């Protein structure tokens, strides 16, 4: 017998234990008090700020100007962008940024990305209020390394896309019906407490996470 069959055979030969019914996960969450949209937004903001991320509230039409002014303040120039309409919109603005297109960068460019990119911009699919988390489903337009390698990560988040918790996001968006190559839930900048329990930011991933929280435009 090969390793697989031997292991499975040993597991099958084991005596049955007490019955273990499917746990009631839905019941656990149903018993929680529901938060309305404003409460979810407030909770999200407080939680992700506690995890050391910046949150800037803005409107759909105003975020590119806001991003440019934050980038200027922080002295960020070299911006990694993907193939999204948001990236195209940002590129159309006049500003002091150099844009690096992920798609046309090529493989030799990897060292360059690790060493010489200042920041990146991606969309968030949605967010989670209880833990202050951003949900990203990277794809061909916004590849995985965009939210990982650059030292500063700008994230566009639709203010109406904040779920109460991970379970709600999974359920309402039907995650179990088709997971992407990689889904990632991000709660602030990269950090470590491995040296004498002293918290330090910017371990291997972004040192800063800047959330641009976009509401619908004012009437």
């Amino acid at each position, binding site marked *: 017998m*090969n*390793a697989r069959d031997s*292991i*499975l055979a*040993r*597991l*099958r*030969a*084991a*005596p*049955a*234990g007490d019955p*273990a*019914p*499917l*746990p*009631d*996960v839905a019941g*656990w969450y149903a018993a929680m008090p529901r938060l309305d949209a404003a409460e979810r937004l407030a909770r999200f903001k407080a939680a992700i700020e506690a995890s050391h991320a910046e949150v800037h509230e803005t409107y759909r039409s105003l975020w590119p100007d806001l991003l440019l002014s934050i980038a200027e303040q922080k002295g960020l120039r070299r911006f990694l962008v993907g193939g999204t309409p948001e990236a195209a919109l940002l590129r159309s603005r006049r500003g002091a940024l150099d844009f690096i297109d*992920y798609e046309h960068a090529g493989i030799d460019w*990897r060292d360059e990305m*690790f060493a010489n990119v200042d920041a990146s911009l991606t969309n968030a699919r949605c967010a989670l209020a209880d*833990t*202050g*988390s951003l949900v990203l489903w990277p*794809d*061909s337009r916004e*590849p995985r*390394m965009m939210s*990982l390698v650059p030292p500063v990560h700008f994230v566009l988040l639709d203010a109406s896309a904040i779920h109460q*918790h*991970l*379970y709600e996001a*999974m*359920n309402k968006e039907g*995650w*179990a019906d088709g*997971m*992407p*190559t*990689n*889904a990632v*839930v*991000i*709660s*602030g*900048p*990269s*950090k*470590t*407490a*491995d*040296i*004498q*329990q*002293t918290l*330090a930011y910017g*371990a*291997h*991933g972004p040192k800063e996470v800047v959330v641009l929280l976009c509401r619908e435009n004012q009437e």
Partner: protein
Amino acid sequence: MSQPIHFHPSSGFDQRSREAMNDLHLRRSFRGAMDFLQAKRRAQFTDANELSRLRDLGEAIRRHALANLPQLLEELESRLSRNGVQVHWAQTPEEARAIVLEIAKRKEAKSVVKGKSMVSEEIGLNHALEAAGIDALETDMGEYIVQLAGEAPSHIIMPAIHKTKQQIAELFAAKLPGVAYTENVDELIRIGREVLRKKFATADIGLSGVNFMVAETGTLFLVENEGNGRMCTTVPKVHIAITGIEKVVAKLDHVAILNTLLPRSATGQPVETYQNFISSPRKPGELDGPDEVHLILLDNGRTQAYGDVQLRATLQCIRCGACMNHCPVYARIGGHAYGTTYPGPIGAIISPHLLGLGATHRLATASTLCGACAEVCPVRIPITDLLVRLRNEAQAADADSSLRGAGESRKPLVSILFRAWALVYRYPTLYRLSTWLMSRGRAFMPGYQGAWTGIRTPLIPAKKRLRDLMAERQRTN
């Protein structure tokens, strides 16, 4: 170079514990870290009732997974295969190492970057890779420090918990070219970041552990704070994940519950920085991510624990480390004294299945049975019951135990004494007679009484028994 694995942790356990007890720096490091972690966990769980119900649910999820383990593993395998992930099975550390080496050889790999993986420690992977001429670099900051120092992790979540920042500052200055001594933690982390970034960009293979595997969707779930786990699973062309067969759960939403317990129990943080769901290698059109994803499912004695209905609970573990953070013995002797990959209470109950009771039976005795471990366990493993069971198995008389190495710590004299004790306690007359004999024959008590007299004065029965004192009192009244 990484540390060789200890195959006989029991031998030398006493010696190592004593050394740890006498090392003031180490004692301070551990005490400080344990107090810190305990306080942080407490702050996360302020509602005792809610915590209790959440632990019930966590336990139910893990028990459900174990009750259906063979079916879930098959479902997981078929889902992952459909997603394009290659699944391998290994019964022993040797088999697991061979699978990794075979992949490395096929890809002509020269370097491997490693995310934190206790299972890779369990199989002694770094050693095997180095022997094959492949660089194996730990990238979790704590693991990196420990590897640079030529040591093994002393805690499953915080590997360098035994080290002070001064020791780390000295280590960096001594081992890294062009690095000056600094005790500034931000600066030390910046140095580590710069060194490791270059490695991520060029490594051929990324290796990681897994926190949970989801059978329903064929998903590997990994959590971390640093981003090195995402680097290892994203940047190199090949990703190899390795984990124990017990880490599977049935449903994707089970992960949501378990991950509300894991970070809060482990480090007292509400959530980790990164929750990473990996379900397939790079798809056509995608611009990054590994071309190949492999999952190695390791048995290494887990099926032995599974074969016993009581001991099966050991496999509920989600590796949060709360049991060690709250263990009065671990806090005093630290992780290295155990001599096993997994130290502390969880180490004492899992190691006998991985290494056999013969090599590990002392670990179950390194407990006061105070029950703090079981009280904080997020999935309610009855750790103290299992410690007592393993103590008994280590003394088992016949070959009626199914555990490897059962009965290996049995000593004829000790078992005769305990059998006599049991007999005496069964019959009141015999009990009275023997206490009379002992109180009158107290001068004949031996000066050497095994481990007891190692650090204590010999036990000598009282001149008068309680029975005698009561009789006297009644006479005088």
